[in-house]
């Protein structure tokens, strides 16, 4: 059984309330930081821990914190990104719903480290009921003196509020999130300036994912070096993986980042194998934006080494034969799934969620959706496959924010690894009329015979 840092206390009686949370050692990191440490010392511990942003980008958190500008007389802010909307990802919701004080505690300790006196949790609108749970936890924390003026007599003040969004994937991008928090449309900003210099209301701001801020708690409690002992290489600590799709045990799992991919997928402690006992076809290991890879490449790298659930191992081989850990939104496909249908579905998502600012993304996502729709529904041409390749190439890297890349990668990887499935749709339009076409007769690669 691997060590759990974030989910350890979930399910214990009363853990969702302040008393139960305190009884299990809650708010120790706030006591330790405010009473015995300087803000710089907290930042140092986070740097030593090697913690990387858990929202998807994997950028070192301590480094991000050290970029925060500190002009005298200008307030700074910490904003928690709880706009979890990456398809496949539901780990932050689980954390906030079942142990809400962990995030509140992480917010207090981190705000202290950054010198922020006013912090926000930006949560997606669909999670309204989770926002109520957080509001309740925050009210309890205020009543017990963990928030407000002069916390623990240290002279440090902090106000923390929940801010509710209204349904826009793009607001998970940090500058779009800040625009939205300012009461505007969620259009990402051009960087630089980065939020660390000009963020919320043009003030220096740090935006961190829920899980990242929650991980600050064990880091401060046990020390950064202890945290760094978990995991492997530059992938230190533990990571929440939300698993779904064609597996036997969907759910949220906390893994050590050195866990082998095969063990994660097949063992009963985690996903429990492929549903229906069928063969594994493909895996999306880190949310819909990361490249989809065939099952065999997920289990073993192109070099034949066993794949690990770490940042480095999952991206081993680049986009040619690897993928990314991303946000940990893991979903598997068995052989009844249709990759073309899934790619069409992904592209429809990105078309719907494009903010419309940059033409390559606004027009390209819709164009790809149209082309994929006709291939999937038996009206495609062979040239369409090259057309798709061409469109995704022209979106990638040509937009203000990474949504363009996120829309391009799933299409590119699907064509790269499953081109024959696209060709099958074009060649045999009648065989793909039924939406569940591969459920009855799974797709098999055509064997070409030569005389």
């Amino acid at each position: 059984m691997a060590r759990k840092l974030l989910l350890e206390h979930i399910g214990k009686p009363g853990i969702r309330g302040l008393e139960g949370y305190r009884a299990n050692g809650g708010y120790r990191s706030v006591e330790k930081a405010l009473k015995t440490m300087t803000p710089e010392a907290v930042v140092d511990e986070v740097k030593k821990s090697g913690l990387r942003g858990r929202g998807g980008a994997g950028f070192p958190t301590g480094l991000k914190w050290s970029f925060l500008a500190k002009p005298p007389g200008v307030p700074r802010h910490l904003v928690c990104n709880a706009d979890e909307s990456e398809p496949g990802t539901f780990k932050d919701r689980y954390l906030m719903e079942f142990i809400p004080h962990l995030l509140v505690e992480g917010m207090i300790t981190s705000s202290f480290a950054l010198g922020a006196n006013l912090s926000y949790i930006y949560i997606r609108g669909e999670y309204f009921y989770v926002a109520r749970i957080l509001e309740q936890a925050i009210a309890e924390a205020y009543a017990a003196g963990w928030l407000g003026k002069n916390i623990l007599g240290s002279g440090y003040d902090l106000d923390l509020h929940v801010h509710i969004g209204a349904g826009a994937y793009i607001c998970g991008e940090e500058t779009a999130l800040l625009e939205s928090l300012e009461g505007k449309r969620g259009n990402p900003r051009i960087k630089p300036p980065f939020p660390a210099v000009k963020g919320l209301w043009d003030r220096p701001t740090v935006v961190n994912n829920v899980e990242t801020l929650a991980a600050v708690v064990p880091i401060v409690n046990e020390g950064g070096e202890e945290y760094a002992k978990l995991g492997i290489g530059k992938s230190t600590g533990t990571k929440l993986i939300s698993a779904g799709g064609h597996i036997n045990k969907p759910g949220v799992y906390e893994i050590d980042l050195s866990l082998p991919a095969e063990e994660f997928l097949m063992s009963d402690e985690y996903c429990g194998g492929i549903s229906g006992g069928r063969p594994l076809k493909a895996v999306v290991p880190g949310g819909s934006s990361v490249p989809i890879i065939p099952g065999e490449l997920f289990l073993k790298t192109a070099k034949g080494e066993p794949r690990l659930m770490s940042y480095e191992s999952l991206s081993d081989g680049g986009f040619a034969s690897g993928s990314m850990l991303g946000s940990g939104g893991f979903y598997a496909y068995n052989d009844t799934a249709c990759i073309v249908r899934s790619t069409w579905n992904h592209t429809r998502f990105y078309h719907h969620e494009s903010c419309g600012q940059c033409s390559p993304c606004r027009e390209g996502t819709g164009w790809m959706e149209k082309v994929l729709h006709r291939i999937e529904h038996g009206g495609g041409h062979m040239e369409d496959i090259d057309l798709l390749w061409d469109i995704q190439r022209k979106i990638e890297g040509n937009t203000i924010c990474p949504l363009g890349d996120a829309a391009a990668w799933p299409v590119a990887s699907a064509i790269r690894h499953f081109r024959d499935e696209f060709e099958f749709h074009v060649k045999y339009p009648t065989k793909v009329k039924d939406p569940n076409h591969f459920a009855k007769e799974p797709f098999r690669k055509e064997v070409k015979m030569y005389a």
Partner: protein
Amino acid sequence: MGATVKAVTVREGTPPFAFSEAALAECRTIIARYPEGKSKSALLPILHIAQSENNGWLSVNAMDAVAQVLGIQHIEVYEVASFYSMFNLHPVGTYHLEVCRTSPCMLRGADDLITHLEKRLNIHVGETTKDGLFTLKAVECLGACGYAPMLQCGAKFHEHLTPEKADALIEQMRAENKRQNYTDR
């Protein structure tokens, strides 16, 4: 959303709108969360309150009332309301059923669930039943991928759905006939 243009409904024929005292008090609590001079930040939460007060949708009158509460221009409210997918610019049924259709849900049968609901309610996605009780909408990822297929109605998530469970849910809703809002506690 940007890519799918939503038109703002015309003012004529929409009922007048005024915040209740309780809602105004809640607006004031929310505005106090932001520094002085930054009250525009409260726009999204207050639009949610207005939508709940206006039978689940935002009429032009409701949006104008929000602009007045925050002291901002009408267009600043319209441009935001038309951007976010949770704000309805047209009336919706008492029960607004939002079924997730994104890939992880699709793998677990979301398409079949949508087809089932269409037949059951005798409407297509995007339509409202004649009695005004149900609106069916297919939406993108709601963050319940492990509990799929699922639908959201108001603040509630209904997960692990099967055709039977969906039917039971519909019957229960018919019997209760009570509007569900995102802001419900």
